């Protein structure tokens, strides 16, 4: 009965003008540190890894936006592929500048997602997952079938870069893009619409009994999710300059799902943390070559076994473990 009076006494809580500033202060600090990282780490390879992490954070956070509405898509990487290929092809064949291709690719991806949402809004749970899985496979087949414009099996080359030369401008571009996307999706999730989506996920029968148009809200969630994944894909196309269909296949989707699950599916920060951990840690184990995925498997095993709520529950686990230790000490002293 006392859920509402939980941890008020965290170590760094401070108030100014009646508002709590702990979280905003920590987050601003983190952003400043990330923005200053290239000054200390002047290796193009490390920048590359961090830029990829930025891109995939947008992808996983937007995936979770769809998941909170009770839909579990298994074709999210394919939507990233749609955004990437649209931007890439527009850049290569139509010679459009990145400032046009990136937003328009995102919008078209959102449009495709929403159109697909109409038939898919009738599917639930496993059937939805299977439908989206087949859609994802279909997207790859379209890429192969239109080999003359998409490059087919050998990949799409000849995309114009966003910035010429150094990777540093990319670093700040994607930092800004990721921050903007995270803020937009955060506002979306904790708004009236996000709450409505969570309500639909909990019980669509109750939701429609109070007048919530379930189908439309599910389509909206897919639209918003696909807009941001299309944005990430288009940005990726103009950064990587080479697109290979294998980056957007079913395995790629499974990786995204794993990022979300390991970080914690019930928390907004979950996919961000999961993506960071699962992209950066395996980089330390590159020498293992073909055995490197075992590292990820081990992380997944440990997290699922010890922290079913994902990595975001780690601080809370540590805290409750500490209080447990203190309590047993007290008991021992008392006896």
């Amino acid at each position, binding site marked *: 009965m006392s859920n509402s009076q939980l941890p008020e006494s965290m170590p760094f809580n401070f108030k100014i003008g009646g508002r709590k500033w702990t979280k905003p202060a920590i987050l601003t600090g983190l952003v400043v540190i990330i923005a200053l990282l290239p000054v200390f780490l002047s290796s193009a390879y490390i920048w590359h890894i961090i830029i990829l992490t930025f891109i995939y954070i947008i992808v996983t956070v937007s995936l979770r936006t769809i998941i909170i509405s009770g839909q579990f898509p298994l074709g999210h990487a394919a939507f990233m592929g749609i955004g990437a290929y649209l931007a890439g092809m527009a850049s290569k064949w139509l010679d459009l500048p990145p400032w046009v291709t990136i937003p328009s690719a995102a919008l078209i991806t959102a449009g495709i997602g929403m159109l697909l949402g109409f038939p898919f809004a009738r599917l639930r749970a496993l059937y939805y997952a299977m439908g989206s899985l087949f859609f994802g496979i279909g997207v790859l087949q379209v890429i192969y079938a239109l080999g003359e414009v998409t490059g087919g099996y050998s990949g799409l080359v000849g995309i114009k870069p966003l910035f010429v030369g150094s990777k540093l401008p990319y670093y700040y571009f994607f930092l800004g893009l990721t921050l903007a996307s995270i803020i937009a999706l955060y506002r979306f999730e904790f708004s009236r619409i996000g709450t409505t989506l969570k309500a639909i996920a909990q019980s669509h029968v109750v939701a*429609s009994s109070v007048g919530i148009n379930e189908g439309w809200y599910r389509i909206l969630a897919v639209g918003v999710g696909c807009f941001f994944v299309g944005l990430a894909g288009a940005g990726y196309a103009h950064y990587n300059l080479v697109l290979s269909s294998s980056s957007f296949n079913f395995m790629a989707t499974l990786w995204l799902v794993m990022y979300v699950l390991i970080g914690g599916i019930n928390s907004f920060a979950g996919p961000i943390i999961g993506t960071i951990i699962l992209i950066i840690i395996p980089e330390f184990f590159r020498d293992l070559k073909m055995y490197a995925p075992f590292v990820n498997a081990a992380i997944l095993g440990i997290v699922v076994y010890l922290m079913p709520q994902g990595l975001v529950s780690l601080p809370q686990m540590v805290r409750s473990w500490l209080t447990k230790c203190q309590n047993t000490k007290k008991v021992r002293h008392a006896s």
Partner: protein
Amino acid sequence: MLLEINGLTKFFGGLAAVQQLDMYINEGELTGLIGPNGAGKTTIFNLITGIYRPTRGKVTFAGKNIVGKKPHEIARLGVGRTFQLNPLFGNFTVLQNVSTSFHLYPRSSLLDIYFNTASYRRNEAYISEQSLEILKLVRLDKVKDELAKNLPHGYQKMLGIARALAIKPKLLLLDEPIAGMNPSEIEFTITAIKKMQQQGITILLVEHNMRILDLCERVIVIDFGQKIAEGLPKDVRGNKEVIRAYFGGERVA
């Protein structure tokens, strides 16, 4: 007449759950719907609210034919309902349960939300104020920050009613509102139902408890999906058909 049902029939496969049902509900009336287990009471609710589509028949609400409309469209017309097994948004707080259900009135656009405009904040403030008002009516305002799934059963039932009230219904369908409640909760619920009726809400309820049925102005008895009796509670109680349906024969009665 607020609600009129003509020749309503629903088949599940070969089984007729509701057969040639005619009934009506007058505006402002408190009507009871009773019948033995499996008589089709909840099916009738689901047919009215659009969860099931009738095989045959007509349902007219406030002069409009509502057959074939989706559940959310019927809710928007002003038909609120609670559920027998009382599903709630369990992972939401009590206040969130009601404010989510306040979905119909003030609207905010996506841009309002992204930029946290004044109109969005005004709408949200209005909604939480109104939700609190409703919670006060059902005396749940003290537990407004609890998770709905942690509430005791009686409170959850009341929360179900509060949620249905949030759409400002003209017609409220209550599916066994006091089942599983303790005596003081029953007392309170009955007062709340009376109060809602005084505020002009038409109520149709399914119930087995005689305390609540005695409040009804009219009782409709159904068995095997067909209406077998209708009238004042005390008349219905003596009806032979009703006794046969509940107890199996005159001899027992």
